[in-house]
């Protein structure tokens, strides 16, 4: 068996090598794709390199991300091949760049940055109506009364969003609309008279949500609010699972459904000894997926992660965990309250890495942005 980097002279050998290379870049390429590629190459003009790689792109890539990055991957593969002297043993892994070591995230620095934010922006708008000011106000700057008001609004919003009418029908006892198909079938048994009429109504589509909330120190200003918000959500639906994490993962669904809010928060902080501690997002997400992923996530579930992405654990772990979660949920939304800051860039290495595996990165630091997120569910 030749080593991976042996230069192949046959076309089929080359295609298979490229397939292997792309697989290491996250493409899902099986033998059926490879045979498709061979069939395609037999019908195009092989003299044009442009046609050659475009053909392979159409066959090998299966989503936008892969499609757009194909050219780069193809070029780096070519580059790699040039370096490979015929059948010298080398491993392909040399190409994988060592990920840049993340700077130790200084939580303190982040916090001081948070506190130093000019608080006057919103206050100056007092000529606006109160509501107008409130919806744009950062959650971290709200007082108790404002918070209560916001939660009231949220609860109503949540109830609406979590129970949408589906366009699929189900059989119903209420006399709303006749289901001709079922009516005919039922009555055919007894002859040609129509005795029973079968009714149908629209199904209620309950949204399935999995919430993962970061309660580490860097999120301190927001996590308490988010817990309240989740609490409001739980009142609206029974199909929500909630976890909080900092250095370890804790399921708190049961606490949020039964107690009144203050009690719930109290119990949660008791259950989570590392409240306001450091963060190991990768480990926690990985833990979540391996322990709960298979029975909680499906193609109807929206996963929401509330975190700032400051991970002190291993980078690849977080990326892999996010990839698995992304693949088994309908949508993955990442809410990062810091993203509301105008200068924000997903600079945090951890966050940058997972961008391909989330459907959206949103701020959710005030009611306006949170409302946008809810509309996406």
């Amino acid at each position, binding site marked *: 068996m030749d080593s991976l980097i042996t230069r192949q002279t046959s076309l089929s050998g080359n295609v298979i090598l490229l397939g292997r290379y792309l697989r290491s870049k996250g493409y899902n390429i099986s033998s059926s794709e490879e045979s498709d590629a061979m069939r395609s190459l037999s019908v*195009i003009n092989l003299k044009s390199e442009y046609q050659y790689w475009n*053909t392979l792109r159409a066959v090998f890539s299966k989503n*936008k991300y892969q499609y757009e990055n194909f050219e780069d991957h193809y070029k780096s593969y070519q580059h790699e091949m040039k370096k490979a002297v015929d059948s010298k043993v080398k491993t392909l892994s040399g190409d994988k760049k060592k990920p840049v070591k993340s700077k130790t995230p200084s939580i303190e620095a982040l916090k001081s940055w948070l506190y130093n934010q000019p608080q006057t922006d919103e206050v100056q708008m007092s000529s606006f109506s109160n509501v107008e000011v409130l919806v744009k106000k950062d959650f971290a700057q709200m007082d108790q009364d404002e918070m209560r008001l916001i939660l009231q609004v949220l609860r109503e919003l949540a109830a609406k969003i979590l129970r949408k009418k589906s*366009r*699929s029908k189900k059989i119903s006892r209420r006399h709303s609309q006749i289901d001709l198909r079922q009516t005919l079938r039922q009555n055919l048994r007894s002859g040609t008279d129509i005795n029973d009429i079968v009714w149908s109504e629209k199904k209620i589509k309950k949204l399935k949500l999995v919430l993962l909330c970061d309660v580490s120190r860097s999120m301190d200003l927001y996590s308490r609010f988010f817990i309240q918000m989740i609490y409001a959500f739980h009142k609206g639906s029974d199909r929500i699972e909630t976890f909080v994490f900092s250095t370890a993962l804790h399921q708190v669904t049961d606490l949020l459904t039964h107690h009144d809010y203050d009690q719930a928060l109290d119990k949660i902080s008791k259950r989570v000894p590392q409240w306001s501690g450091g963060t190991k997002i990768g480990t926690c997400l990985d833990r979540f997926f391996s322990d709960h992923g298979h029975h909680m996530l499906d193609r109807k579930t929206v996963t929401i992660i509330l975190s700032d992405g400051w991970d002190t654990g291993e980078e690849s772990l977080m990326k892999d965990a996010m990839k698995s979660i992304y693949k088994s949920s309908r*949508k993955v939304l990442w809410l990062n309250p810091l993203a509301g800051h105008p200068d924000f860039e997903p600079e945090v290495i951890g966050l940058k890495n997972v961008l391909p595996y989330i459907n959206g990165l949103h701020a959710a630091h005030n009611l306006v942005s949170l409302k946008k997120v809810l509309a996406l569910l």
Partner: protein
Amino acid sequence: MMTVEDIQRMMSSEAYVVDKAIAISIFLSIQLQKPLLIEGPAGVGKTEIAKVMAKALDTELIRLQCYEGLDANHAIYEWHYQRQLLHLKMLEREDATRQDLDKAIFSEDFLMERPLLQAIRQPKSPVLLIDEVDRSDEEFESFLLELLSDWQITIPEIGTIKATTQPYVILTGNRTRELSEALRRRCLYLWIDYPDFDKELMILRSKVPAVDKELGVQICNFMKELRAMKLEKTPGVAETLDWAEALATMHFDHLDKEVISDTLGVILKDWQDIRTVSNSLSELLERTGVRSKIG
């Protein structure tokens, strides 16, 4: 045998500007008889590809518009219940047996073909456009998988219907929902993005020949700058064409601030966008103006 260049020629004869990448994908999908999954932002001509393909191949276009709640009854076949009922009433008088009844009302006469069944029963391979497949439910998607691999449909009362010809299948999506891995694997993939300046100008010239040359350049420049802005709904090529058409009908030969602000509604469909753009119009114009002078 057909070549990639043939496809390009065929498509451009129908006034659809294709670049090589698109032509190759279409070509492969026809040659390999594999469905082609096209994704991209709204208004870049995804649906149009299927329409033009049907014209170029001189065959029928069968379109299935997907929506939430779309089920097999609406996509494949449905019995004509009202007619069945009437027929039953008629037969009642004739004292027909149960078997007769069954046979009579579950026959082809009462079968309503929906797009998918229709598509596999054509004498000549049609183009089957499954539009916005990401809007349908998961259940429908898995159902589609079965059809796309076996090309047969089973109707319990009649039996299995095998495809007489295999249609050319085009699936489009806007990425409102992530499609399943299984469906993706059955298809070839094509991502169409907003066209660059040159391509858009070509499209504009071939679709709206009435538009003034200089105006065309200005429009495309303006659209390019517009798409670089952060808008709620980024305008697509369809909007460019509408706008050009509108300006040409009104006999304008150049863009200025007044003309643009009067016709913004043609390209922007969101009131906030209109407000944002109106506010920064001078700046936008300046940028496009400078560029067109250099170009």
